[in-house]
């Protein structure tokens, strides 16, 4: 016998102001199998929940409907309430009369009528609810960190320090990422290398970390606790254990190209380490550039390698590994500001980006730390910084603020004033955003040193003789301004990696309209994704500076450790299930399953005295995430989804219609 209790929440006046809750209560009492109806000011409050527990006991309720807010808000809360009253938590159904009704409609009569339909639906569905039980999945306590920038390094170290094995995968030949390219960091002006390099070395030497550089994730299968990941380890053409990193090979290599690490400002060879502090400090051969790979002749590096470490015949290897958790820390790219033709980037060599300037200032950069004009090598006397190139510009760039640019521009101005006595610097800005510990003071220091902040956009940069003319507007003075500059530095936006969406699809996580990976909740679950077991760290989730990135790396590691603290995970029981008597074994359900949770098995059946064996589908409840795509592929309806069964949805349709 079904005994349904209906609990109607007023949500203060949030619901009650628009929906006539007393009338709704009267209506609900007449619905089939409803034996108890109650109204609460706040059903989710402790007294509200206590009322439910009491009613379950007193009225022997075995089904509960709560008409309140969205189940996405409080379904877990009320499930717990049921459980604490010894009722299976899946015998609950919520009617969303707040987000879907009282908040979006004004007419009281209409809203109340709609609320009646919503309650009717919930009552109809809950009748067909069955007790469900969570299943448990063993956890493989080994983590994969994708991306070897500061976020990935931090996450890997924190996981490894907790005693769990980590594989750190990096696409480039070295870890270090963007931070390795920077000279100093704001607001303390620590040398970036000095604080990063030890961490890179720690990561490489940690007994629990396997460092796989020059490698990429190709395929991800499985589920939380048991991800199967295919990783392509690209051929470095170097035997890493034999190589001593002596450098003879790249000294002698005749093939040159612009060094990506220096953004093309310096040169590298075909066999190279990206920068002197690279980890691992072993070269790789760029096969697209290498003369031997192009023509079959050369082998100079091999001749000069006394360790015999050059192995041209190496092949890419694809390895398949199992992990319990994955941290995505793939970072960002610079906005392609070629769309700002008026700033003359690419046309005038003295228009550069902030990252270029980092390389120019860096003591280990192509100019040995001397800031020179790319055009003629002269020391610049006047430098103009243009903020928000791409950021906060819906027409040509992205709508968001890239967060770090205001501060790194202040840093650049400070460093230029320190390096070049008498330099004048101008910063064209929209707003200065200096929200962070010590940030405002840092910005003030830039101004004290002489950086002139001009509030307004730059309209045009053009060459006049040897100089760059920067035309802009000072909106505070309401006047047009012109600066003759030697160097123009663009603060380009931080954007998602161009291939972030493809990685998101591989991982099965979502991304926003800008291509940044989406966190499970913007405030409360900032490093989790909607896919259990996959976490985010750093700028792949959105633009951020180094302190925030490191914090997120640590946070993601904490989440992984949290997961690894358990031997088994409890899996949601709302999964697909097969009625074997109905299943024909056609297995057309199988290709629709994204988790490879469906397989076939042989069953025996007694039929007219004979034992028949036949194939039927079977679902691995640990793998199944409960999407239900298979249920529609099944014509018989032998494949059904617990919690969203065919019977239930049909009953809901019947109940919700007029």
């Amino acid at each position, binding site marked *: 016998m079904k005994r349904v209790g209906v609990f109607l929440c007023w949500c203060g006046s949030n619901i009650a102001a628009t929906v006539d809750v007393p009338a709704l209560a009267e209506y609900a009492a007449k619905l089939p199998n409803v034996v108890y109806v109650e109204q609460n000011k706040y059903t989710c409050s402790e007294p509200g929940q206590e009322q439910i527990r009491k009613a379950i006991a007193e009225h022997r309720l075995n089904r509960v409907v709560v008409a309140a807010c969205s189940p996405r808000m409080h379904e877990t809360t009320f499930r717990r309430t049921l459980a604490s009253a010894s009722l299976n938590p899946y015998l609950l159904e919520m009617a969303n009369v707040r987000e879907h009704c009282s908040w979006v409609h004004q007419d009281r009569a209409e809203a109340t009528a709609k609320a009646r339909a919503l309650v009717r639906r919930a009552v109809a569905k809950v009748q067909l609810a069955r007790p469900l039980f969570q299943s448990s999945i063993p956890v493989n306590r080994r983590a994969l960190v994708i991306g070897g920038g500061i976020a990935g390094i931090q996450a890997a170290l924190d996981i490894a320090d907790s005693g769990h094995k980590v594989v750190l995968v990096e696409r480039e030949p070295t870890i270090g990422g963007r931070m390795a390219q920077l000279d100093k960091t704001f607001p303390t002006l620590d040398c970036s290398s000095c604080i990063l390099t030890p961490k890179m070395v720690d990561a490489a030497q940690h007994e629990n970390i396997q460092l796989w550089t020059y490698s990429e994730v190709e395929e991800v299968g499985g589920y939380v606790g048991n991800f199967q990941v295919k990783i392509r380890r690209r051929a470095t053409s170097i035997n890493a254990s034999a190589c001593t990193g002596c450098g003879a090979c790249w000294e002698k290599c005749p093939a040159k190209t612009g060094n990506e690490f220096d953004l093309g400002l310096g040169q590298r060879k075909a066999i190279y380490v990206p920068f002197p502090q690279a980890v691992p400090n072993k070269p790789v051969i760029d096969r697209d550039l290498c003369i031997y790979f192009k023509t079959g002749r050369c082998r100079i590096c091999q001749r000069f390698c006394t360790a015999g470490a050059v192995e041209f015949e190496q092949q890419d290897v694809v390895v398949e590994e199992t992990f319990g958790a994955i941290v995505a820390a793939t970072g960002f790219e610079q906005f392609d500001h070629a769309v700002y033709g008026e700033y003359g980037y690419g046309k005038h060599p003295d228009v550069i980006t902030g990252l270029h300037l980092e390389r120019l200032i860096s003591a280990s950069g192509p100019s040995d730390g001397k800031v020179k004009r790319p055009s003629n090598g002269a020391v610049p006397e006047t430098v103009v910084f243009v903020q928000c190139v791409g950021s906060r510009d819906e027409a040509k760039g992205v709508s968001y603020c890239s967060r770090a640019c205001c501060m790194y521009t202040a840093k650049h101005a400070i460093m230029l004033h320190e390096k070049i006595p008498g330099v004048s610097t101008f910063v064209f800005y929209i707003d200065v955003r200096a929200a962070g510990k010590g940030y405002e003071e840092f910005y003030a220091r830039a101004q004290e040193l002489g950086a002139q902040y001009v509030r307004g956009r730059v309209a045009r940069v053009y060459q006049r003789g040897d100089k760059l003319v920067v035309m802009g507007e000072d909106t505070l003075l309401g006047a047009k301004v012109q600066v003759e500059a030697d160097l123009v530095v663009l603060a380009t936006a931080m954007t998602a990696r161009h291939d972030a969406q493809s990685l998101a699809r591989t991982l099965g996580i979502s991304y926003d309209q800008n291509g940044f990976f989406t966190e499970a909740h913007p405030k409360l679950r900032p490093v989790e994704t909607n896919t259990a077991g996959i976490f985010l760290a750093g700028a792949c989730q959105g633009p951020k500076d180094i302190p925030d990135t490191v914090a997120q790396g640590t946070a993601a590691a904490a989440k992984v450790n949290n997961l690894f603290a358990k031997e088994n995970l409890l899996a949601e029981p709302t999964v697909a299930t097969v009625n074997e*008597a109905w299943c*024909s074994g*056609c297995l057309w359900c199988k*290709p629709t399953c994204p988790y490879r949770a469906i397989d076939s098995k042989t069953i025996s059946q007694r039929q007219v005295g004979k034992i028949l064996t036949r194939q039927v589908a079977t679902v691995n409840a640990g793998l199944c995430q409960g999407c239900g795509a298979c249920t529609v592929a099944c014509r*018989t*309806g032998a494949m059904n989804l617990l919690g969203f069964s065919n019977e239930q949805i049909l009953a809901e349709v019947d109940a919700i219609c007029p």
Partner: protein
Amino acid sequence: MTAWLDALRDHVREFLSEPGVDVFIGYRAGRRGREVPAFLTRPEQASGLVLGPAASGALAKYVLEEAAGTTGRLGVLARGCEALSLQRLVRDLRVERERLHVVGVPCAGVADLAKLEASLGALEKVESCGERWLVTAGGNRHDVDPSQFMEERCRDCASPWPQQCNISFGQAVMSPASPDYSTVAALEALPADERYAFWIRQFERCLRCFACRQVCPACSCVECSLDLVDPPWLGREITVPAQAMFHYTRALHVAGRCVDCGQCQKVCPVGIPVALLNRKLARDIQELFDVQNPFVPGEIEPLGKFRAEDREEFM
């Protein structure tokens, strides 16, 4: 008499002599000029095999009953549509391909026996003779133009020659490049209300005898959802909307798997143009999902896969 029939009989005789063979399914002469399914288990029965325009049934689905609970090999005679039906059953994992011995034969269309009987009297024998049919009916022999008396489904047959057979007899025939959807297009040209009225006129005649389902090679479920009381997909009430639901569901269930054998329409006792539903879905599948011929069973059914760049109409 068809030239290759003796060779066919010899082949079947040999087949039935092989160890591990359970049955050969073909046609034998029946009463009133009919040719009816025959289930041969002994070599000597092979001489009774016939195949003419009067063999208007479909053999493929009998394989299911014969295969259940047995392990031996099954021989089956297959014309174009029957060969596709067998492929369908194999793809739906209802029978293992290795168990089947498919004997392909050409087909130039089967006779609409009711129509022949109506115009010529009680049938005694229907034979094909070159391009013509020789019909013995009402005590007389008639030389008949097949195009006058051919079953409708055979007129625009897209698969006259059986594919993927173990052996075949007779001369191969070219298949048309694409199935013919002109009947679908004609109906689509009507205004919505007229189309609705048309279908309601069809559906209200439905007896829900399920003959269309029983005969269909794509409807081979152990249990049919339309028979179930719970969940009430269809319900027991006989109303026109429920009849519509039945036909909608049946058509969608075979969408992407229909082989256009036309049996569903042929067996309908009240003449509902069931195949017109199947063909509409097939045409759309062909167009929307770039399927070359939706009636030929593929590796994965078109609704069991997707392409990220599939047509987007729902933004």
